[in-house]
């Protein structure tokens, strides 16, 4: 049976943990809001570009000439997988979901022709301990995530792809569905899937092109790839904060429940102690009285 002081100590310990989890929850909530705003702010550019891309790809389909190299489907075996996680934990299953998912896909791939790119400390540490070729890692940038980070990654992928070092590039990251729901998704980045490229085509427009439709498409595709990477990074960041907020809210609630249980235990123990002391006193007084009578 725990002594009163032990219980008190535990209550205090849980209380201070609760303070931390509550603070983390508030911080995550504030950062989540900012991350969500950024996703919204990027939408005008992203949606317009998707539309232009659709129109141009559809137009290019009917035209002559070879398709753009970034659209060309190759049959090579060399696959690159990009795994995006957070730098930090304490975000529920956020990181482990992506890592588990990626490991399954990695194992399915041809090991000799596989390279990895790991984004986020958790992914880096996870794959460092395993026998895979990590081509590049990128950590410690989440707090100042900018479009330039996406460009750096995307340009690396495209350079390798165009050089023929890799034949396909896939992203695995947490998609931000809602504050409480993040889902690991896999997306083929390169070659750009044709169905995806065409998906947002509006009604055909008879543009005057300058310099030419094909040249504009050539300019647009790399930007599309950069934007896809940027979007994946922003979704992952918002997802991380969402997951951390949910996890910390649960932790705060658990701490509260625990404090309640411990408080009840404490009161019970205190009452028992008082009762015991009373009995001792009464018993002692009884004994004295009997001693005096005798």
């Amino acid at each position: 049976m725990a002594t009163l002081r032990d219980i008190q100590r535990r209550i205090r310990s849980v209380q201070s943990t609760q303070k931390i989890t509550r603070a983390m929850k508030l911080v995550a909530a504030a950062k989540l809001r900012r991350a969500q705003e950024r996703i919204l702010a990027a939408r005008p550019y992203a949606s317009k570009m998707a539309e232009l891309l659709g129109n141009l790809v559809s137009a290019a389909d009917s035209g002559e000439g070879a398709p753009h190299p970034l659209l060309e489907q190759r049959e090579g075996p060399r696959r690159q997988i990009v795994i995006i996680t957070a730098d930090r934990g304490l975000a529920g299953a956020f990181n482990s979901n992506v890592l588990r998912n990626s490991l399954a896909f990695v194992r399915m791939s041809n090991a000799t022709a596989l390279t990895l790119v790991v984004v986020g400390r958790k992914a880096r540490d996870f794959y460092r301990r395993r026998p895979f070729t990590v081509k590049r890692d990128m950590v410690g940038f989440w707090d100042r995530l900018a479009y330039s980070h996406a460009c750096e990654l995307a340009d690396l992928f495209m350079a390798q792809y165009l050089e023929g070092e890799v034949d396909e590039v896939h992203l695995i990251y947490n998609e931000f569905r809602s504050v409480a729901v993040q889902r690991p998704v896999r997306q083929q980045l390169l070659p750009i899937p044709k169905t995806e490229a065409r998906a947002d085509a509006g009604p055909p427009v008879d543009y005057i092109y300058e310099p030419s439709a094909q040249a504009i498409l050539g300019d647009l595709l790399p930007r599309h790839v950069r934007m896809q990477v940027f979007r994946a990074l922003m979704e992952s960041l918002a997802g991380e904060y969402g997951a951390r907020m949910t996890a910390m809210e649960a932790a705060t609630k658990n701490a509260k429940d625990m404090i309640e249980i411990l408080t009840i235990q404490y009161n019970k123990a205190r009452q028992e102690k008082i009762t015991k002391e009373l009995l001792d006193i009464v018993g002692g007084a009884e004994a004295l009285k009997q001693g005096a009578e005798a």
Partner: protein
Amino acid sequence: MADRITLEVATPSRLVIGEQVDEAVVPGIEGYFGVLPGHAAFLTTLGIGELTYRIGRDERHAAVAGGFCEVRNDKVIVLADTVELPAEIDRARAERARDRAEQRLSGRSGEDIDYARAAAALARALVRLQVVARPQ
């Protein structure tokens, strides 16, 4: 036909300008082009230059670099890699960038230079200085 056109300027991270304007002059890859209401559907890549738009008699400017411009149904949509409004331009920094690029191009620094990159940097710096020098 509307008597005004809608101008939207967006970068990957935000929508910078969204406004009804009377006229827009955009730096296309093959030169500046003006857009007035009733313009034909037009799609071009952007060069590095100064975007000018006019609302009534009020003329405003922004430095843009790289991207696309679509004109359609009295709507001008500029998707640029970077957009800087006059208030956001740091004149001293642009001057330093200009000097650095000039020095590289003249070959005096002795570094192994990437000519195209230096030339683009110079063009961007000059455009920034031009935009920031406009009467506000």
